[in-house]
């Protein structure tokens, strides 16, 4: 605030507030800044804490030995997280393969094809899937999906045993069921972000495609999808991050066997599920506890990586948008 020519006594402009009146302003400013700083401190502390507490496990087995050894034996005091890592990756990959096409289809249908009147209702219904808590998905999966899908899974395993990782005895709770539940759980977020991305496709592009005689589907294929590819990839990656970190629903339907299953319908374990199940018994065993915390750290790093990639895609998608006006976008 530049002082004007008119000044009150003490060399202060009459436009300036007395120091006491400026106090609340300063307090607000510094209070909020302190709050923002404490967020950064908190995250730093969070990471350091997890790292320090997991050190005994890494010291004993080595970083690679812990992460990639195929032996999780609580009684024997040996902790290699590979079976958990594999379980996490298989279930999340299954979730992506099933969930993303469905989610993107709903986004396309809701934004481009469905009657305008149904749009709000459909959006609300897809979002309702996000309101169901994880533990309820687990409950439903265990008592509804597992028994009902088992014959179908067995039939599939018997008739498609030529496919890799298919065939043999179908366990009740298994990788596939966990992946399916995860797929349902990531549909709302992937669909919501895809809808946002699709909404940013300029009307010009769509109208140009239609004016050139494209059918609706051709318009989607040539105008919408190429334009929103990066954003949709980002949405899928965010969904993947969710699936990797999801705990309780998976814990209930994965079977909790700390071995690498030979096929898709075998029991398994995931990083998050092992923490939820074993932390109670681990309280008295420092090495076991450190191993669980190390599993948590591994999970954290994995989700961090996936989310960073997702962010990169989404940001790139947005930047593309900003650069786009006027510049013709090559349609694939």
């Amino acid at each position: 605030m530049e002082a004007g020519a008119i000044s009150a006594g003490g060399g202060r402009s009459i436009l300036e507030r007395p120091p006491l009146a400026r106090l609340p302003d300063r307090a607000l400013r510094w209070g909020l800044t302190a709050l923002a700083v404490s967020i950064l401190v908190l995250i730093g502390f969070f990471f350091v804490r997890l790292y320090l507490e997991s050190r005994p496990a890494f010291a004993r087995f080595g970083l690679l030995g812990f992460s990639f050894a195929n032996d999780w034996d609580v009684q024997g005091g040996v902790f290699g997280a590979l079976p958990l890592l594999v379980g996490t990756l298989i279930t999340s990959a299954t979730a992506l393969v099933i969930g993303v096409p469905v989610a993107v289809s709903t986004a396309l249908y809701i934004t481009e094809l469905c009657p305008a009147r149904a749009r709000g209702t459909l959006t609300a219904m897809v979002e309702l899937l996000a309101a169901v808590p994880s533990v309820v998905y687990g409950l439903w999966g265990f008592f509804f999906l597992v028994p009902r899908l088992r014959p179908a899974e067995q039939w599939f395993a018997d008739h498609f045993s030529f496919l890799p990782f298919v065939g043999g005895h179908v366990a009740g709770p298994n990788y596939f069921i966990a992946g399916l539940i995860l797929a349902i759980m990531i549909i709302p977020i992937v669909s919501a972000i895809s809808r946002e991305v699709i909404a940013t496709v300029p009307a010009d592009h769509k109208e140009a495609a239609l004016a050139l005689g494209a059918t609706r589907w051709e318009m989607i294929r040539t105008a919408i999808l190429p334009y929103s590819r990066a954003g949709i990839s980002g949405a899928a990656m965010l969904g993947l991050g969710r699936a990797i970190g999801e705990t309780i629903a998976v814990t209930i339907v994965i079977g909790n066997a700390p071995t690498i299953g030979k096929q898709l319908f075998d029991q398994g374990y995931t990083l998050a599920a092992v923490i939820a199940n074993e932390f109670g018994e681990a309280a008295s065993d420092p090495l076991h506890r450190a191993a669980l915390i190390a599993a948590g750290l591994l999970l954290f790093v994995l989700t961090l990586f996936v989310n960073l990639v997702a962010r990169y895609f989404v940001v790139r998608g947005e930047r593309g948008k900003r650069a786009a006006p006027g510049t013709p976008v090559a349609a694939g």
Partner: protein
Amino acid sequence: MTPLAGIGARRRRSDRVARTMLAVATGLALVPLVLILFYLVKQGLGAWSPSFFTTDPSGRFLGDPGGIRSAILGTIEIVALASAIAIPAGIGVALYLVEYGRDGRFATAVRYFVDVMTGVPSIAFGLFIYITLVLATGFGGFAGWKGSLALALLMLPIVTRSAEVALTLVPESLREAALALGAPRWRVVARVVLPTALPGLVTGVLLAVARAAGETAPLLFTATIVKETTANLAAPMNSLPAQIFSDVGQAQDRLVARAWGAALTLVVMILVLTTLARLVSRRSRIA
């Protein structure tokens, strides 16, 4: 959909096939929703009774398993404390970002780490509180307030991000008008910015509360699962998600029945919150 001349039969067919597939996929996405809600109501209502809501779990191996009073009250207490921490903190950080930090380097860093926090699995927050507070000597042990802290960590980024969006939508001209009239910054924030953004803030807050209410993993390590009702946040405290999780693990019909009843209760609570959030956001004047 008049078939125009020039669109060949093959193109028309592939258009129809593609549209049908998109519609079918949308229907497919809603199948689990319908199944879950139907099954939940069918199984859950069967477990509901007046005593279901007014008694604590008995813990007896045979006979009456008791109700879910301690779980309902525990969830309300834990989530209330978590909200009391996360809502002011989250809105405060958002205020900093919008009113002071803007596009500066520090604000960008804060925004980035809030984003990082959104992606952190909820179980990691539980683990963090577990190793820093529960295992710590001194004030060790499980306690309701530790569960609240874990949930607050989870809510904070959600509140911050939604509040930032709501605050950014407040037109700059309103702020400038208030400043030009001589209002100090804090007054502009308190009397102009916050009231204008209120509906948006409330919507974000309600969604964050709904999200926290359904979380199980962070509570298992922090507030744990007990039978008794307690108002003491320093004692172990029951919660609906934790109760459901433990009942499912027991694989006894009467406990599973209680789990369904508890699940229906939890979903109804969350639906009330999300519906409120929707109504409030619809009444918003801006955005």
